[in-house]
């Protein structure tokens, strides 16, 4: 009972409704950031006062495949008018996948007051709320990265430690069942592929889409607990979530960490790293091999 109250409070802390955002558009402490990955989506119209960030070049290292550095993230936040005492509200297209990646960044880089707009762009548009066409010009913010918590991030060797049972843990594969079983390498039309299809041995398949309602909002905490418990993920063992490039796993990381309070790391390398790595064990139920039958 107490635990669910705590969890509900956790959820309340991390999520805001579209209505709350609508009521707080003029709030001087609030800074809204849209992280949408489809080209032109932000430009065509966004929540009033929202700054638009580009995941590919601003939230990832544009040269090495890596997360954005603390220095670059600081600069990005400052030019968006974000300070350490701002209330940052994140949302985006594609069910908030990339907004969740940004949430994960903010958490790792020590910002204490970050919210995700429940339902993202999808819900805002479904509710027919007004869009703004202008890019805001906020005065420069003073955000500083005061601490980094990279314990929230899993690397390839962390995943292998779990696979080889050198450390306790459970892996959650949030991709579609066809990707998980190795039937397909990736959904059609995707450019980031891997040499091998399949999943990390022992990974549980809980597609991210099972965590949201039709309108993009998250299901209730009780429903989510049940969903994961049925797949054997109940918070007793530390979790590592992965997908293909780390954006859908950010979404699930948010669910498991911020809504359910589990010990969970996001494996941003995901299948495009694991499935291309040499000498790592892979589980492939369908026997698909690159260019083979």
């Amino acid at each position: 009972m107490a635990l669910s109250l705590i969890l509900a409070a956790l959820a309340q802390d991390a999520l805001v409704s579209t209505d709350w955002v609508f009521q707080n558009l003029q709030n001087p402490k609030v800074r809204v950031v849209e992280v949408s990955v489809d080209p032109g989506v932000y430009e065509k119209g966004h929540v009033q006062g929202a700054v638009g960030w580009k995941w590919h070049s601003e939230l990832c290292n544009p040269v090495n495949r890596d997360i954005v550095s603390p220095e670059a993230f600081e600069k990005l936040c400052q030019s968006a008018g974000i300070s350490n005492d701002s209330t940052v509200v994140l949302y985006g297209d594609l069910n908030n996948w990339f907004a969740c990646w940004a949430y994960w960044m903010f958490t790792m880089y020590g910002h204490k007051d970050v919210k995700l707009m429940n339902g993202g762009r999808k819900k805002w548009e479904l509710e027919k709320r007004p869009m703004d066409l202008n890019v805001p010009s906020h005065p420069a913010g003073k955000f500083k990265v005061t601490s980094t918590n990279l314990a929230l991030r899993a690397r390839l060797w962390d995943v292998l430690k779990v696979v080889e049972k050198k450390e306790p843990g459970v892996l959650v594969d949030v991709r579609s069942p066809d990707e998980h079983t190795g039937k397909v390498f990736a959904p059609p039309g995707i450019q980031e592929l891997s040499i091998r299809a399949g999943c990390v041995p022992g990974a549980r398949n809980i597609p991210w889409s099972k965590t949201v309602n039709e309108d993009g909002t998250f299901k209730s905490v009780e429903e989510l607990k049940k969903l994961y418990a049925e797949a054997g993920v109940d918070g007793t063992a530390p979790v590592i979530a992965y997908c293909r490039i780390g954006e859908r796993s950010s979404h699930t990381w948010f669910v498991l960490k911020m809504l359910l309070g589990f010990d969970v790391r996001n494996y941003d390398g995901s299948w495009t790293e694991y499935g291309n790595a040499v000498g790592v064990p892979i589980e492939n139920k369908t026997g698909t091999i690159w260019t083979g039958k």
Partner: protein
Amino acid sequence: MMIRYAAAAVLAAALVLAAARLHGHESYGRAASFTLLAGAAFGFAIQRSRFCFTAAFRDLYLLRDRRMALGTLAALASGSVGYLVVLGAQLPDPSRYLPPTAHIAPSGLHLVLGGAAFGTGMVLAGGCISGSLYRLGEGSLVAPVTLGAAAAGYGLAFWTWDWFYLKMIAEGPVVWLPRSLGYAGAAAAQLAALALLAGLVLWKCPGLPPRPGAPVGPRAALRRALVDGWPSWMGGLAVGAIATFVFLRTSPLGVTSELSRVSHEIGKALGIVPVELQGLGKLPGCRPAATGAAFTPNAIFVLALVGGSAVAALLAGEFKVRVGRPRTFAMAAAGGLLLGFGAMISLGCTVGTMLSGIMAFSLSGWLFAAGLAGGAWAGTKLMRKLA
């Protein structure tokens, strides 16, 4: 002649430099820079076309001269189309929310009364507020009297504001045509209404003979654009375009926010007006509102308007310090009081309430226009009696 071209060039350069300065300034920024350029363009356009709502009604009533009336209808029609394009991006589905910045104000009797006061005032004064502003840029010394009296008129209105707010505004229905008719329906209805009015004007008022064939060529075209007067319909189209751009980039066209703010500040300093004005913060329109910076956006717009008008006047050789007879000043003062009063209770004037309201498909704009038509008619009758 060289002096006035040089003066025009210097003034134009000053406006552009000011815009550049604002762009990079910490307290101002891109939006302020855009506002300045838009204000200058607006001032230029209305001076070139002598765009004034006073003429639209008074000349129609008095002389059956339909030109400015048609210019106004052209502005409303082109602005409505422009607004439609922007609204479709801002709010694809108009059935639930209102566009957040448009001047879609509560409907009520206060708009008709305000429009009537404003209409009478503008005919007495010989110009509305935007008209007085562009005439100021041409060198008129009567215009500042009108504007000063308007500030005093605002003062009077502040005393009545709470009454109007509680009796008529607070519970006035917000009637936004697209909400009930959809964008297509609202556009069809409004454009049809404007076409009907245009048809009426064209039918009832004879046109002037066409101008003799003017020479063509780049030099003549430049002369036409910068030196000769623009036909009213051209001014109307320019106003409609500028209104659309300003709505897209900043906030709807208006020229009275700063005037009302200054009037309120002066009144408060002298202790002769109420400090609190109920409900003002929530209403759309040309509200008196201070920002942290020395110049509010509307101050920038209005000053640039005067500057743009001055550039146009200098280029055309129309800049002249103009004085009037004592009677002219007296009428300007009397008219100005009514202008200020009417603009306060309507939260805007012919530009901020009528243009920006009608272009946004709000009933509030039409109600103000109805009051305006009646007030201008009464003003014209009064002028004839006094003559």
